[in-house]
Structure formats: C-alpha cells, structure tokens
C-alpha cells in the first residue's frame, strides 16, 4: 500500500502533471498531421526528456504516444489520409462513415474505443508484468539469448513486407550495433579509426534520423494533403454507448488481439490495427457492410491499436526487449533515467512501476476530453501548411540530436540514418526491424557470447534448460514460418 501511495505522490508532482498535459497536446497535434507518426512524435520528445525527472520523462512518452495513435484517426476520417500508420487499416471505413454524414460517430468511436483499448492494455500490463518478472528472475543467459532472438524473429515475422527483407533489415541493425568498443574483447570494431565511433552508434540520434528525417525527406517529393474544409461537429460521444453495447465481442477481441500483438516484440499499433480489422471483417455477422461505413471494424481495430501500445511495455520493462518502435525509444529513456529494464525493476523500483500504470490510466482517461477538443480544433490544426511544420521538425532533429551529448557527431548520425531510413522504406525494407536490431544488438551479442563461454563453445546447453528449450523451439518455428506459408501457397496453387 505504501508503494502505491508513493506512486500516486510521484505522479501528482506538478512537473509530472504539466508533462502529461503538454505531451498530450503535442501528441494530439503531431498525430493528427498526416505524415507525422506517433514514433516520430516520441523520437523528437527524447531530447526534452533528458532534462525532466524520471517519472515526468516517462509520462511524456506514455501520454504523447497514446494521444498520437488516437489522433491519427482524425485526418483518416475527414480526409481519407491516415495521420499515423496505425490508423491506415480502417481509414477507408471511417471516411465512408463521414461521407454518409456520420463523421461524429466515426471520430467519437476513434476516441472512445481508443481510450477503452488503452485501459484494457494497461490492465494487461498490470496483470502480466509482475508474474512474468518473478519467472524471469530465474532466467540465465541462455533464456535471455533465446528471448532476444525470438523478439528479433517476431519483428521480422509480422513485418508487412517480405520476410527475407525484414530479416536483412534486422541483421543490418545488429551489424550497426557491432560498431564500437562495447564488445567481448573491448577492441575497436568497425570504427575505421574514427574516435567518434568508439562509443558506438547512439540509439536516439539513429532513431530520430530513421523516423523523423526520413519523413521530412518523403514530404519533399509527395504532394501536399488537401486542406480540410471548415465544419461544425455535433456531439462526439453520442451513440458510443450504443456501439459499446452492440459490439461487446468485437471490442473484447480487439483488446485481446491488441494486447497479444503489443506483447510480441517489434509488432506495434499498426500491425494490431491491420490484424484486428481483418479479423473483425472475417468474424462479423455482416461482413458485406464492411467498406460502406460500418462501425464494427472501427470498434475492434480502434481498441486494438491503443491496447497494443500499453502491452508493448511488458517485454520492454521486463527484458529490455522493445514491444514496438515506441518502446524501443522508451527503453533508451529508461536506461538514461536509471530505471534499467529487467525483472528487478519490479522489486527495487516498485513505486516507479505503479507510477507508470497510473500514468497510462490517466493518459487514457484524459484522452476523451482532450480528444474531443482536438476533433473540434481539427479544422484549424489540419490547415497548418506542411511547409511551416516540416522546417521546424528539421531544426528540432538537429538541435535534439545535439542535445543528447553536446556533440555534433550525433547530428551527422541523424542525417545518415535519415537517408538510410528513406532508402530502406522506399525499397520495402521495414525500418522497425532495423531499429530493433540496433536497440537489441548489444544484448543479443552479450547473452550469445556469455552463453558460449559458459558452455565452452558447445551449442547443446542452449537447449538443455526447459524454458530455453521452449523458447528455442518458438524461435526456430518463427524462423521457419515464412517457409511454411510459402510451401502451403505453392501447394494451394498447384491444387
């Protein structure tokens, strides 16, 4: 009880409350602007979190990401352009509702079911994390190696691209993580004589480059989205309770699928929305209505993407394995703030853990009034010319990267990774897998090499302990899954 009271005290601190409110408004605005993703919003926040208290820093990430994922629904419903990739799956449906004169219902469903999904995801975090932490206390390097490897494989498995390209992206990330002297021999590796590379590639500038600069680069060659016509909205929440009562199972299914996808390393809100929307259509009693402005898919996928956001923190907090690209950034902040991910976090810093739970609940509750305000202000915010937003983002990328270590090499890193992210995305190489490789590289190598040293170079002990054997089987299954899918398709084609 004392720990819980301490957590409330931590969250009630004025700096944390200001951080939650400011980050919420920031997340709502950035998420609603087409082309600016929730991950980018989070990446640009990191330099600011350097100067905040640990709880305020995490509060900004939790609030901004939750708001941005919802806010991406707004241009989707009004312009048929998703604000964030997480809204892309049901943009068509929401826009069809707007054309039928049900814009309020579509946007209301966005905010209402996002909040419900977010709360369900938080409950999963509260319920799942402590028992898993207890189990993880007995893990050795063998289990950690398989867990990290499984995480990397999951990221490639769920990528909406060629699995081979996803694995190549992940390996490229691991190769980038090899740079520097942080290796088993402590020798300079792939530094080519540059002292700036001795410390390795900093994760935060790399992420800012991949997610923010590459988006500005894309904006340079894509047409400006059409301006949003001014309009007056009626009641936003009217009809949402009726929808909740009408579609309890889709809501429940969306929450569960979102939670499962969130827990899977590397798979985030966009994947959750795609899977849930497809599932909703397949299991619906009225599948023929999908695509004509039917709210059922919106209920399921809208809840799912926000549920995945909170559950994505489970592997991140427990093992330091990112649940999605947003938590990949959050892990960097956790380390920076002395909240090193791991099972002991739940025993040694229990009050901070409770504080994270409380912040998630608060963020999802205030999403409703702030989301409604954002919907009403959308006519004005979405009229902001892209030519006035993007220059500020470029500037923030430069200054933000510099702020991470008062070092201009970080700005060079941002530029290089911007180009890399842009080229990869343009050629179907998923950048989420690259990011996962960069973030987890050191951990994978350490657990791999330490395990090999313990086993005297033999691979057998990697499979001897029961948990590591199960994890190994899952990893090998994930590796072979695309081959199985391909063989099945070939067989079906021949039949």
């Amino acid at each position, binding site marked *: 009880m004392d720990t819980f009271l301490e957590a409330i005290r931590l969250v009630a601190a004025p700096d944390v409350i200001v951080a939650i409110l400011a980050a919420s408004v920031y997340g709502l605005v950035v998420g609603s602007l087409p082309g600016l993703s929730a991950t980018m919003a989070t990446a640009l926040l990191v*330099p600011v979190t350097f*100067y905040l208290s640990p709880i305020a820093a995490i509060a900004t990430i939790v609030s901004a990401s939750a708001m941005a994922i919802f806010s991406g629904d707004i241009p989707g419903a009004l*312009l048929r352009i998703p604000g964030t990739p997480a809204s892309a799956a049901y*943009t*068509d449906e929401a826009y069809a509702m707007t054309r039928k004169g049900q814009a309020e219902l579509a946007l209301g469903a966005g905010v209402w079911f996002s909040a419900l999904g977010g709360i369900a995801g938080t409950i999963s975090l509260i319920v799942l994390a402590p028992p898993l932490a207890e189990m993880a206390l007995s893990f050795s390097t063998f289990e950690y190696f398989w867990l990290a490897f499984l995480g990397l494989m999951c990221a490639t498995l769920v990528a*909406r*691209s*060629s699995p*081979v*390209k996803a*694995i*190549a992206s992940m*390996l490229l990330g*691991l*190769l980038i993580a*090899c740079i520097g002297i942080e*290796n*088993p*021999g402590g020798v300079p*590796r792939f530094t080519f004589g540059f002292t700036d590379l001795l410390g390795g590639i900093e994760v935060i500038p790399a992420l800012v480059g991949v997610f923010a*600069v590459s988006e*500005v*680069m*894309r904006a*340079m*060659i894509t*047409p*400006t989205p059409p301006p949003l016509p001014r309009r007056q909205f009626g009641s936003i929440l009217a009809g949402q309770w009726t929808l909740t009562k009408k579609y309890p199972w889709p809501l429940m299914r969306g929450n569960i699928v979102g939670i499962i996808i969130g827990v899977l390393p590397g798979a985030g809100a966009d994947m959750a929305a*795609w899977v849930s929307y497809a599932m909703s259509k397949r299991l619906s009693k009225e599948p023929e209505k999908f695509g004509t402005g039917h709210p059922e898919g919106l209920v399921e996928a809208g809840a799912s993407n926000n549920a995945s956001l909170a559950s994505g923190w489970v592997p991140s907090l427990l093992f330091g394995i990112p649940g999605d690209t947003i938590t990949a950034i959050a892990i960097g902040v956790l380390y920076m703030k002395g909240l090193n991910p791991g099972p002991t976090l739940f025993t040694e810093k229990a009050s901070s853990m409770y504080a994270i739970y409380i912040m998630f609940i608060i963020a999802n509750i205030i999403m409703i009034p702030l989301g409604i305000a954002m919907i009403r202000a959308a006519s004005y915010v979405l009229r902001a*010319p*892209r*030519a*006035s937003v*993007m*220059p*500020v983002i*470029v*500037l923030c990328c*430069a*200054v933000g990267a*510099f702020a991470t270590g*008062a070092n*201009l090499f970080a700005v*060079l890193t941002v*530029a290089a990774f*911007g*180009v890399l992210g*842009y*080229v990869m995305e*343009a*050629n*179907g190489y998923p950048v989420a897998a690259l990011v996962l490789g960069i973030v987890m590289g050191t951990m*994978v*190598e350490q657990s791999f*090499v330490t395990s*090999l*040293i313990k086993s*005297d170079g033999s691979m057998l002990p990697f499979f001897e302990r029961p948990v590591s054997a199960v994890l190994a089987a899952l990893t090998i299954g994930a590796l072979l899954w*695309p081959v199985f899918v*391909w063989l099945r398709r070939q067989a079906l084609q021949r039949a």
Partner: protein
Amino acid sequence: MRLTDRFTGLFLVGLGALAAYGGSRLPPVPGQPVGPNVFPMVVGIGLSVCGLMIAFGIGHRFEEEAEADLAAHTTHSPEQDVTHRRIWYLRALIPPALLLFYVFVVDHIGFIPTAAIMVLVTAVTLGASLRLAIPLALLAPAGVHLIFYKLLRVPLPDGWLPMPWS
C-alpha cells in the same frame, strides 16, 4: 528512390561479406574460446545469405500483397500520378544536406543564422511563399533557441547573433 531488388540484394551480399571478413580479422581474447569476432561473422554471413535471396526475388510476393492492401485502403490523389524529371526527386536529399550544413557551419556563424537558413530553405522547397517562409525563418530559430538554450540548457553557439537571454 526505388532500386531494383537485384541491386539492393547484391549490395547486402557485399556488405555481409565485408562484415564477416572484417570480423574474422579481429584479435581473439586470450584464454577465451569466443571473442569479438564471432558475432559480426554470424551477422555478416546471415546478411549475405539474405542478400542472395533478395537478389533472386525470394519473398517478393509478400511485399506485393502488403502494398496492394495499403493502396486499397488509402486515397490515391491525382497529383501522385504527376511524373517529374529524375533530378526533381533529388530534393529529398535537402533535409540531410541541411543537417550536414548545420554540422559544418553552426560553430562558425552561430545557431540563429544557421537555423534561419535551414528553415528558409526547407520551407521554400516545400512550396511556402516568401510571406510565410521569411517570418518562419525569423521566429522558429528564436523559439527553438529559447526552449533548448534557456529552458533545457543546451549549449548552442551564439556566433553572429547572440540572443538577449544568452
């Protein structure tokens, strides 16, 4: 910047081979069976194998399906069909070029002038009128400087134009 799968695949084969070779030349740790060479060699070989598969078009069908799915769910604006000359697409390189400009110039002329040039160039390239771009180039750097220098205490160089709060 769409490259062929054969090109990107072969590039990865080369990169993987270089990584594996570079890894193999790292010194071992005395008395330890595994050193800093093992991981880059494993990753390099894996990257080369993936590169070969990509070059031969393995897994390409998964990509086509995802693209078709996304295209079916979002607006296709007629402006996207406008084709430009190849050189026009090089404007995508302006943001990283501006970041390089920042690295090499900021310590000489200071933050405000460097940032103003970056904002002006980006805004004009994105089609802003000078009536929007010039005030933005004057105000945005000052705002960013205020937040990062004054509130977050990031040591931004003054150069030619020190701000009243610095």
